[in-house]
């Protein structure tokens, strides 16, 4: 990621660009979508959550979006900012609740209010969990400067969120 930005910022990008532009492909297009899909393992022992078990084309059919906001609508505001903030929130929560989060992190925005939902393991005591809740909410709201609320559910172990093994 960093190196990419460096390349983008470096001044000799312009002299490279005609080279990129002149390339064209003659081979036939490979219409194989692989992103967001998981390979079947030999032993059939890869655990998948419900969210992982459904490939992206099932969004809005069998599963929903992980980020809920209006930035991508017509005349939506803060498109890139929202995306980067969401990624920051995901990384922050995953790192702060280290090894505890066992689902995707859902981020819902309403007005300036950001609601962050996740499923966590009951691996630490409730007291510690409350400390982390307070810490995460306060730090994120100070960082993004709008109120952030955590909406957690707890499960006994990671196995509780496994939908199937492939």
């Amino acid at each position: 990621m960093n190196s990419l930005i460096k390349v983008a910022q470096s001044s000799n990008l312009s002299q490279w660009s005609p080279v990129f532009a002149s390339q064209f492909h003659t081979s036939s297009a490979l219409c194989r979508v692989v992103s967001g899909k998981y390979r079947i393992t030999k032993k059939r022992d890869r655990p998948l959550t419900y969210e992982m078990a459904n490939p992206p084309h099932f969004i809005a059919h069998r599963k929903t979006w992980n980020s809920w906001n209006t930035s991508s609508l017509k005349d939506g505001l803060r498109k890139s900012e929202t995306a980067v903030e969401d990624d920051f929130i995901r990384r922050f929560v995953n790192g702060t609740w280290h090894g505890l989060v066992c689902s995707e992190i859902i981020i819902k925005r309403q007005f300036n209010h950001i609601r962050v939902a996740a499923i966590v393991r009951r691996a630490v005591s409730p007291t510690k969990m409350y400390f982390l809740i307070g810490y995460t909410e306060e730090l994120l709201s100070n960082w993004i400067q709008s109120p952030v609320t955590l909406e957690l559910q707890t499960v006994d172990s990671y196995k509780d969120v496994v939908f199937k093994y492939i």
Partner: protein
Amino acid sequence: MYSNIVASRQWARLACFCRYVSTIEGQTLPQAGKSSDGISPPPRISRSPTDILQALAATVGTDPTAAHYKYHDDPYLIPQSNYRKRAYALSAEAGRKAAAWIRDEHAELFTMREWDPPMKMKTPYFNADPQIEAFAPKPIYNDESKVTEEDLRYTIENALLEDSIKVFELLGGVNNLDDQLKLSLLQLLCFYNEKEPVSMEWVEERWFSAATRDRHAATWRVGGLAEKIFTAMDPKTPEAYCCIIQGMAKYFQAERAHVFAQEAREKGIQLSTTVYNSLLGCVGFLKEGVNLRIEALKGLLHEMNEQGLSPNSETMSACLRSISSWGGGKMLQTTALQIVSEFRLLGIEPTLSAYYYLLCLFCKEQGPRIDILTNIIADLEKRESIKATQATDTNFFITAMGVCSDHLQDVNLAERVHALLMKDDNYQLVGDAYKESIYYRHLVTVSCKYAPFEKTTELLDTLVPNIYVPEPTVMEEIIRTLEVGGAGARLAEAWSQLVVFGHAKRIKLVEKLLSAFCNCYSYQEEEVKAMIRNAAADILKYGQLMEEREENSDRRSPSQKYEIIYVKTYS
């Protein structure tokens, strides 16, 4: 083509703006007189931004079966005992404090967005719209910081006491300040007695702070910064005098407060009503003996009259506070009633604090039973709304319920008090966690003792465990009530409640429960009998478990007792 689109968009914006302005214009027209067509719309009522939210919230009652909203709605995270309630709420706040500390330590990172394009980087740019003041980093003051008077003003306005003293020292002490700022610093110091208050931001810490009873002892910091600032002030304004006298009176430096008041009077400085209120509150420290004290109190009131100051409701509660702290007896009681009727003549109704002091004066634990509470409640029920004006107002409901429970032993009155507390926004008057739990302790006790059985169980079902977790003594009372009522199923459940609330190790309580089992067992239905047997078996198992644990720590265990009672249950 492109410019066309832009133009149309701007036109749309202009039109939007025009509409906006026209609606505002339309709304502000009050239409006082009748218009030509005979329709007269009512004048516009101005609303605050949260009025609609409050109206919506008023349509939904609180759900007593759910945990308080400060706890996470998840079975693992809902607290079941008093200890856990406290621990969970305070650890969440500890997390908040940790985050706030990071924010203040690294304030430079929290002012702009790092991922903004480079051109925006140079100007501080706030992420959020609207910008929220509370999320901005707070300044840290230490010996190296460069400060101005603006900083001092900021710290005083936000009641950051230690910071304001630091800034004051950095600015070079008393001589380098203008008078207005000096006065406001003096006011801050006097109000808090130079002790940093718990910030308003930490709600839970304030809610759970250990209940310290108002100590009637001189805690005023003698020779502290406040006094230094006061002596350095020249000329001494009436405000400065008012401020130092009130500070001393508040922290019971009574004699010096009165000396200062005398000095001010001799100099011909006009003192305010609030100064007299605080002097009235500590007048008892000057004299010994009830008669002399009442004389002094009346003397002060006469003095107020001579100065042409009109008393307010706080004057009454200050008088009653003094009187109630001088003990009991017929004489003080009649004086208190005289004061109340005098103020009634002036059109001043007693506040909750005044009623609290009256209850303290009339309803002594050992004293004769005097029923003034009925009239007080009748008066409060008539009022449209009860507003908290003083900190001591929160003492009223807990004391009133205590009087219902111990003094009058009247469950109907207790229900009226409870209904009053539940009305509108009155629940704010419950005080803090400590007061709340004592309030419910009294309510549950009086209900268990004197209310019909069905009503008591209904009350318990709503209160326990989310609003109130019974303490061991109350639990004993509840078990007795269930035993008398012959509710076998509820008794069996009481055991699991004991475990959850953390009372299962209290031998006396478990014995009570077991004997209740024995007494009820014979006439229960088969199903309930099985439940009771299971509970008893569980108690035995728990006792053995405890015994095993205690063998390691080498202590005697009471499980033999369990076994005897257990056998009795089965026979």
